């Protein structure tokens, strides 16, 4: 048996470790190196969802309802699928508006109405009391069990006197702990990095503790979970737990539990605090969406084996199933395991109590006490930061004592889980105003108030009142025959609805009243401008990101604003905040006396972090002189801004199109100019080319006409020249016409199967005279077989003639040598015409196929040829899908090469087109 002092020592050591972690976390946060800024710590901190309820209550519930403990964890798993867009939207809104609690969130959404904040706070406090009392009960019971349990003696009931009640001391210890943790100083952003780190650590401890006891029970006491389950199935009593029928209320209750836990995971004040307020980075939500369900899965794996083991070991019902987790190891004298389990349970309970009380105390302070305090004239000008801290510390103590009171009052008569479900049903009342509020702009302030009140009233009447009845405060007759004997108003079967279990009954009526009032009142309500403004900010948070939320157009001095903020969050933090603002917005805080609207808005949000948005508004308006911008005006600005944004988007699109069109036009214009220039050039070159022979024809004709006495020999010579020049003229004109035809695409092409051997032979035949005259050698290297291509035969002959005559032109008469070679490399047909002339300069090689580009002879500077021959060759070869190029080095001759695709076998049969 464990001594009391051992347990106490271990407990306080453990709490000491937690405090050290929190202290370290805060230090790191102050140094700017956060230890909680990663999705894993975020996930673990969300696991504050698993409280003592999970730790002790799940096993208890499994022992009585079978699978009935699971919906509490399946709900959050399902909800986590929606986190990525629902939770992220809430986080974005909360960060934009510096929201620090769920009450603040709801009141901000509905026109920053302090009344709504107050209502939400009251619902939250009243609704969470059963939950807190559950934790107190769990810790005190587990403490008592640990030091009084003697196998196989039954459990000693809790002491009767308050002063000997362990729960009271647990309450006080927890209060001190929560106060130390949560309210060391007022932080404008209301974030507690150290606390989050400690909660994450606790989540690890409780998971490990539960897995340890699960493995211990399954594998040490029994030989594996399968064996354990097999033993249980044999017992007719236990085998009932294997199906849903063990759950009273059956599938409907199952659905209700799933729904409630789906809502609870987001809207329990402590979950909201951890998920939204303590969130460091929206991106963390992504990993948490599947890691957190995984955590839930792991912590539930051994619930069934442990509860079955408990039922097998204590078949007579002498031990409360809620303490099976402790009782089973103790029964087997495994005190160390039991002590570890106790620590796990303590982790679960303290984690919940700390986060819940901090969240609630913020709400009580900002939304209940501050609005009242700020109305007191005497407090208007004093330093309030210490007052704020005192209020928060006081409210933590009060909340925990209320929880203790609830526990004393009715805690004994309820199982752990049942207490928790009452709280879940209360938290679900926040779901409609938030979920509908962030997606429907029409939800109005009055709608929210009536919805919340109606839902809360229904919840109180159908769940809270019966719990008072059970504790003996109210006569039990009200349950059976209704108040004043009116049976229709019985809290468990309101208006005669008797088909549901009490929980489903309550959830049904309260949700119906809540949603019904919210929607109907909103539909018949006229929203004022402030409501519409806040609604727009919330619903369109992703669209209006850059639009400032400031409302102020009046004037305030910087000094006044700073004083005001300093009164709530302390002068040191204020200085820091203002200088940060100054560097970020390039605003000279020190030298400028008047604050602009932006700075006023900034101060308001800072204040909102400390005292809630509603109070912050009141405080700022006491400092700012002059008029606020009328909210109608602001709405208009908002609308106009959206319109302007849309117009500018459209404008951007248009101007982009315009730019594209302009670029196209510019390109087209450039091409046209280029073509025009080419045409001019062409015309001038052609005329020039035509004039040269024409001039000589005319000159010689005039000589002949004017000198009839010319010698016959002379006369012949001149006539020869005239004929030659005319021929040249004809050739030139033919070539120009040819080229024009080819370029305009109106030339007629025939497609025949042509043997290139023949083509080359024909060309060299027609040029043989020329070769002979210039005494230039022509060497032909032709293959023995036919080389067929599909082409226009005459044109190919023309190409060959052009290339050969070109070669002749550039060869030295006498020593000149021209080689024409036909080969078929790699599926191509290649014709090479090489000469041993002066060669072509590399610069010229590129331009040699251009129109009228004439090579300057290397020795004499006189151009030879028309300048169209190669251009025509180029066009012809191109037309046939081949390629033509020149290879040459100055002084080493030039080699013109063209390649064509060989004719395919099938088409060699000679079908001409």
């Amino acid at each position, binding site marked *: 048996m464990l001594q009391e002092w051992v347990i106490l020592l271990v407990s306080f050591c453990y709490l000491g470790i937690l405090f050290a972690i929190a202290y370290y976390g805060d230090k790191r946060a102050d140094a700017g190196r956060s230890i909680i800024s990663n999705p894993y710590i975020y996930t673990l901190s969300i696991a504050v969802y698993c409280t003592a309820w999970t730790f002790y209550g799940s096993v208890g519930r499994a022992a009585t309802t079978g699978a009935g403990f699971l919906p509490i964890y399946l709900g959050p798993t399902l909800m986590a699928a929606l986190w990525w867009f629902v939770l992220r939207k809430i986080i974005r809104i909360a960060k934009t508006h510096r929201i620090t609690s769920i009450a603040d969130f709801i009141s901000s959404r509905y026109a920053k109405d302090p009344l709504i904040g107050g209502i939400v706070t009251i619902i939250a406090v009243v609704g969470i009391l059963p939950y807190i009392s559950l934790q107190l009960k769990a810790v005190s019971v587990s403490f008592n069990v640990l030091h009084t349990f003697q196998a196989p003696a039954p459990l000693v009931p809790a002491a009767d006197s308050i002063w000997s009640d362990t729960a009271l001391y647990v309450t006080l210890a927890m209060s001190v702990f929560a106060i130390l943790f949560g309210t060391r100083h007022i932080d404008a952003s209301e974030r507690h990095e150290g606390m989050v780190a400690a909660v994450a650590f606790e989540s690890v401890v409780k998971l490990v503790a539960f897995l340890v006891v699960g493995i211990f029970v399954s594998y040490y006491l029994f030989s594996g979970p399968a064996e354990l389950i097999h033993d249980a199935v044999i017992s007719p009593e236990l085998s009932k737990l294997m199906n849903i029928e063990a759950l009273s209320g059956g599938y409907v209750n199952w659905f209700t539990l799933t729904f409630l836990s789906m809502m609870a995971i987001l809207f329990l004040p402590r979950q909201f605090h951890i998920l939204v307020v303590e969130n460091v980075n*929206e991106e963390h939500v992504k990993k948490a969406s599947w890691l957190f369900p995984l955590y839930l899965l792991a912590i539930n794996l051994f619930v069934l084996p442990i509860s079955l083991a408990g039922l097998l070991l204590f078949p007579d019902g002498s031990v409360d199933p809620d303490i099976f987790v402790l009782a089973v190891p103790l029964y087997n004298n495994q005190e160390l395991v039991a002590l570890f389990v106790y620590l796990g349970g303590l982790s679960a309970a303290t984690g919940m109590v700390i986060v819940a009380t901090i969240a609630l105390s913020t709400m009580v302070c900002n939304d209940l006490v501050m609005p009242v305090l700020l109305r007191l004239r005497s407090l208007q000008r004093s330093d309030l930061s210490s007052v704020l801290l005192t209020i928060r510390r006081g409210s933590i103590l009060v909340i925990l004592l209320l929880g203790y009171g609830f526990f004393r009052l009715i805690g004994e008569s309820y199982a752990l889980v049942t207490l928790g479900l009452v709280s879940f049903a209360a938290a679900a009342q926040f779901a409609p105003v938030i979920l509908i509020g962030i997606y429907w702009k029409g939800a109005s302030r009055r709608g929210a108030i009536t919805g919340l009140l109606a839902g809360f009233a229904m919840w109180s009447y159908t769940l809270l009142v019966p719990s008072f009845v059970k504790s003996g405060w109210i006569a039990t007759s009200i349950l059976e025959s209704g108040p004043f004997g009116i049976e229709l108003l019985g809290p468990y079967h309101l208006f005669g609805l008797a088909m549901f279990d009490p929980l489903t009954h309550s959830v049904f009526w309260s949700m119906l009243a809540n949603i019904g009032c919210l929607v109907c009142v909103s539909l018949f309500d006229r929203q004022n401008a402030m409501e519409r403004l806040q609604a727009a900010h919330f619903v369109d948070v992703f669209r209006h990101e850059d639009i400032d939320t400031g409302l102020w157009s009046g004037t305030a001095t910087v000094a006044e604003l700073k004083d005001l903020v300093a009164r709530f969050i302390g002068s040191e933090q204020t200085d820091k905040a203002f200088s940060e603002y100054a560097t970020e917005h390039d605003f000279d805080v020190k030298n400028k006396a008047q604050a602009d609207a932006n700075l006023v808005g900034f101060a308001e949000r800072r204040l909102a972090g400390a005292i809630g948005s509603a109070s912050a508004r009141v405080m700022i308006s006491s400092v700012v002189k002059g008029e606020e911008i009328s909210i109608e005006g602001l709405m208009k600005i908002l609308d106009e801004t959206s319109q302007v944004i849309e117009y500018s988007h459209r404008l951007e699109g248009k101007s982009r199109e315009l730019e594209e069109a302009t670029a196209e036009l510019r390109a087209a214009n450039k091409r046209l100019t280029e073509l025009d220039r080419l045409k001019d050039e062409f015309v001038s070159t052609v005329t020039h080319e035509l004039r040269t022979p024409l001039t000589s024809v005319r000159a010689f004709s005039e000589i002949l006409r004017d000198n009839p006495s010319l010698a016959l020999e002379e006369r012949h010579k001149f006539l020869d020249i005239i004929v030659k020049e005319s021929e040249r003229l004809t050739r030139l004109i033919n070539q120009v016409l040819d080229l024009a035809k080819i370029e305009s695409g109106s030339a007629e092409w025939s497609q025949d199967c042509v043997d290139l051997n023949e083509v080359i032979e024909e060309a060299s035949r027609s040029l043989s005279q020329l070769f002979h005259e210039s005494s230039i050698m022509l060497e032909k290297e032709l293959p023995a077989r036919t080389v067929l291509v599909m082409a226009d035969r005459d044109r190919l002959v023309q190409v060959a003639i052009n290339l050969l005559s070109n070669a002749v032109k550039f060869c030295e008469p006498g020593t000149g040598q021209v080689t024409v070679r036909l080969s078929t490399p790699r599926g191509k047909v290649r014709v090479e015409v090489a000469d041993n002339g002066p060669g072509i300069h590399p610069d010229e090689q590129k331009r040699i196929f251009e129109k009228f580009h004439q090579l300057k002879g290397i020795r004499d500077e006189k151009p030879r040829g028309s300048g169209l021959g190669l251009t025509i060759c180029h066009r012809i070869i191109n037309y046939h899908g081949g390629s033509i190029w020149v290879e040459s080095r100055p002084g080493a001759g030039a080699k013109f090469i063209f390649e064509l695709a060989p004719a395919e076998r099938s088409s060699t049969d000679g079908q001409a087109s």
Partner: protein
Amino acid sequence: MPEIKRRQNERLVVILIVGVIALNYPILSLFSKVRLIFGAPVLYFYLFTVWTVFIGCVALVLEKTTSSPFVSSPPKT
């Protein structure tokens, strides 16, 4: 960008709907039997399997897109 994001949201909603259907009456009643499968009661085996698959699907949808379409920028204050 909104296209990818919308598709992702649609998938998540469908996963949720499938999950809610699979974990409620009447599908659930098909498994509410006193029988063992792999040493575990059929009901528990089914629930934990659906649970695991559900988590896997959510993880797949969320982690497949490498980063958020609009990376969060902390709101200016």
